[in-house]
C-alpha cells in the first residue's frame, strides 16, 4: 500500500515538474517580453514627447482648439504629454497581450487573435473621432467668424449647426468602422441628416423668416439695389 502511495505521489510530482519545466521557459519569455515592452514603451514615450515639443505640437493644438477641448474635459495634461502617454499605454497593452500569448495557454490564444484582428478597426475609429472632432471645432469657428463678419445675427446658431453635423458625421464613420450595427447607424445617420436638412428648409422658409429676409436683403444689397447708405471709404 505504501509503495502504491509512493508511486502515485512521485508520478504526480513528476508530472507537475514536467509541466513546470514546460511552463517555465514560457513564463520567462513572458517576463522578458514584459520588461522589454515596458522599457520600449517608456523610451518611446520620452522620445515622442521630445519630438512633439520640437515640432510645437502644443501650439498647433491650441490653434486647432484641441487644448481647449482637453481643458474643458478636465484633462490637465498638455496635448503633447497626453499623446505620448496614449502611445505608452498602447505599447503596454500590446506588450501585455504578447506576454500572455507567450504563456501559450490555449484559452487565451483565440481571444488574443481576435483582439489583434480588431485593433486596427479600433485605432481607425479613434483616429476618425479625434480628427473629425478637430475639423468640426475648426470649421465651426471659421463659420462663426465669417458669419459675424457678414453681419448675420444667427452666426452662433450656424456655427453650432456646422460643428454638430461634422461631429455626427465622424461618429457615424467611427461606429461603422467598429462594425457596430452598421446598417442601423447608416439608417440613423440618413434619418438625422435628412431631418436636419428638412428642419433647415422649414426653419428657413417659415420659422426663420427673419434669417431668410436678412440673407435675401444682403444679397440684394450686394447687387447694388439697396437704398441703405454704402461705405465709400477705401480701407487700405
Amino acid at each position, binding site marked *: 500500500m505504501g509503495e502504491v502511495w509512493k508511486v502515485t505521489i512521485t508520478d504526480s510530482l513528476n508530472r507537475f515538474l514536467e509541466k513546470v519545466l514546460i511552463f517555465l521557459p514560457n513564463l520567462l519569455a513572458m517576463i522578458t517580453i514584459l520588461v522589454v515592452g515596458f522599457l520600449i514603451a517608456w523610451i518611446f514615450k520620452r522620445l515622442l514627447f521630445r519630438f512633439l515639443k520640437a515640432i*510645437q505640437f502644443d*501650439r*498647433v493644438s*491650441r*490653434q*486647432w482648439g484641441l487644448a*481647449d477641448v482637453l481643458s474643458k474635459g478636465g484633462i490637465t495634461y498638455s496635448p503633447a504629454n497626453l499623446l505620448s502617454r496614449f502611445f505608452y499605454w498602447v505599447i503596454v497593452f500590446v506588450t501585455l497581450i504578447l506576454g500572455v500569448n507567450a504563456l501559450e495557454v490555449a484559452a487565451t490564444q483565440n481571444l488574443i487573435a481576435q483582439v489583434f484582428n480588431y485593433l486596427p478597426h479600433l485605432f481607425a475609429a479613434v483616429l476618425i473621432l479625434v480628427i473629425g472632432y478637430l475639423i468640426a471645432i*475648426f470649421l465651426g*469657428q*471659421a463659420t*462663426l*467668424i*465669417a458669419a*459675424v*463678419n457678414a*453681419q448675420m*445675427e444667427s*452666426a*452662433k446658431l450656424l456655427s453650432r449647426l456646422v460643428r454638430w453635423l461634422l461631429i455626427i458625421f465622424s461618429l457615424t464613420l467611427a461606429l461603422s468602422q467598429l462594425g457596430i450595427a452598421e446598417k442601423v447607424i447608416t439608417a440613423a445617420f440618413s434619418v438625422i441628416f435628412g431631418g436636419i436638412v428638412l428642419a433647415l428648409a422649414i426653419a428657413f422658409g417659415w420659422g426663420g423668416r427673419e434669417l431668410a429676409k436678412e440673407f435675401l436683403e444682403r444679397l440684394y444689397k450686394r447687387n447694388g439695389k439697396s437704398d*441703405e*447708405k*454704402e*461705405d*465709400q*471709404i*477705401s*480701407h*487700405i
Partner: protein
Amino acid sequence: MEKSFQVQLEEIKAADILIGIPSYNNARTISHVVRAVIAGLAKYFPSARAVMVNSDGGSTDGTQDEVRRVQIEDFKTILTSHPVNPIQKIVTPYHGIPGKGSAFRTIFEAARALRAKACAVVDSDLRSITPEWMELLLGPVYEEGFDYVAPLYTRHKFDGTITNSIVYPLTRSLYGKRIRQPIGGDFGFSGKLAEFYLTKDVWETDVARFGIDVWMTTLTVAEGFKVCQSYLGAKIHDAKDPGSDLGPMFAQVVSSVYRLMEEYQSLWKGVRETHPVPTFGFRYEVGLEPVSVNVERMIGNFRLGVRDLTEIWRRVLLPETVGWLESIARLSEEAFFFPQELWVRLVYDFALAYSKGPVHREHLLKSMIPLYLGRVASFVKENQKSSADEVENEIESLCRAFEEMKPYLIERWA
C-alpha cells in the same frame, strides 16, 4: 517666367528705368495710367532707356489690349520735344498665387533681367495719376541715390483706415521711421532693392497678395536701405465696393505686419524713438469728393463681434480688456466711443497672440475685423466735423499712443 516675356526681355537687353503696372480687370482706368506713365517718362527722363511692364492677373475685360493699344501719338501736345528713346511696352501674365504681390514679383524679375537702375510701380485703377508722379517716384532713386520712395498723398480724411489705424502707427512705432503711407501702392525703388526682394522666399505667403506693400516698406527700413517719400497729390481710385474684399485684405495686410514683427523682433525691441524721412515734392491743397461712411453698420458689426466672438478673444486678451470691450458694446450709438488706448492695446495683444499662437492665425485676424470696425466707427464719429489737418493731428496722437505703449508690447512679448 513666361517664355515670350523672357524673349522680350532678352531682346531689350537692358534698361535704365522700369515701370511696373499690376492689373486685374482694370480696362476702365488703365489707359489713363499708361498715358500718364508714357508722358511722365518722356517729359522727365527723355534720354533714359525706359521699359513699361504690365503684369496682369488674367483680366477678361480687355485690360491687356488697352495697354497695348494706348500710345501718345503727338508728344508735341504735351512736350516741347520727342523722347530720344521710345518707351518699350511689355504685357505679360504673372504666375503664382493670384494677387498683387505675385504681379510685383514678375516686375522685380524684369528689373533684374534688364539691370534697371530705377523702378516704379503704380496701381492700375488710379484716376489721379499725372506725369509728374514719374519724376517724384523715380527721381530720388535715379538722381539722388535713394533706394526706396514711398508715396505721400492727400486723401479724404476717412480714407485709408487700415493705414491710419494700424499699419502707419504700428510700423512707425516699431521701426522708427515716419513713413506716412507704408502701403500706398505706388512706390519707387532701385534695381538693387528689386534684386534683394527676389532673394526672399515669401511668394507663397500673404506677401504674394495684399501683404506686398507693407512687406516692401518694412524690409527696406529694417535692412537699412535709404528711404524717402514723395508728395504725389491726391489719390483717387476707381470706384468699387470697399467692403467687398475687406476681410481678405485686412487679414493679408495685418498678417504681413505681424509676421515681419516676428522676423525683426530683435530690431524693433531696440528702437526707442521715431524720425521723419526726407520728403520730396511740393505740397498743395487738393479738393476731395466727400465720401459716405455707414457708422451705424460698423457699430452693429462691432456689437455682433462682442456678442459672438468674445470666447475667441478671451484666449488672446486680458480679462479687463474683454470687460472694457463689453462695456463699450453696451453704449448707445450716440455715446459710442472706442478709446485710442484700448485700440493700441488690442493691436499689440493680437500681435502677441499671432506670434505665440493660442488661436489659428487666419481665425485670429478675421476675428479682429469687428474690433477694427468699432475703432473706425468711433474715429469717424469723433472727426465728423474736423478738418483734414485736425484729423491728421488725431492720427499723430494715435501714433504717439503706439510709441508710449511700446514697452507694454516688449514686456508681454518677452
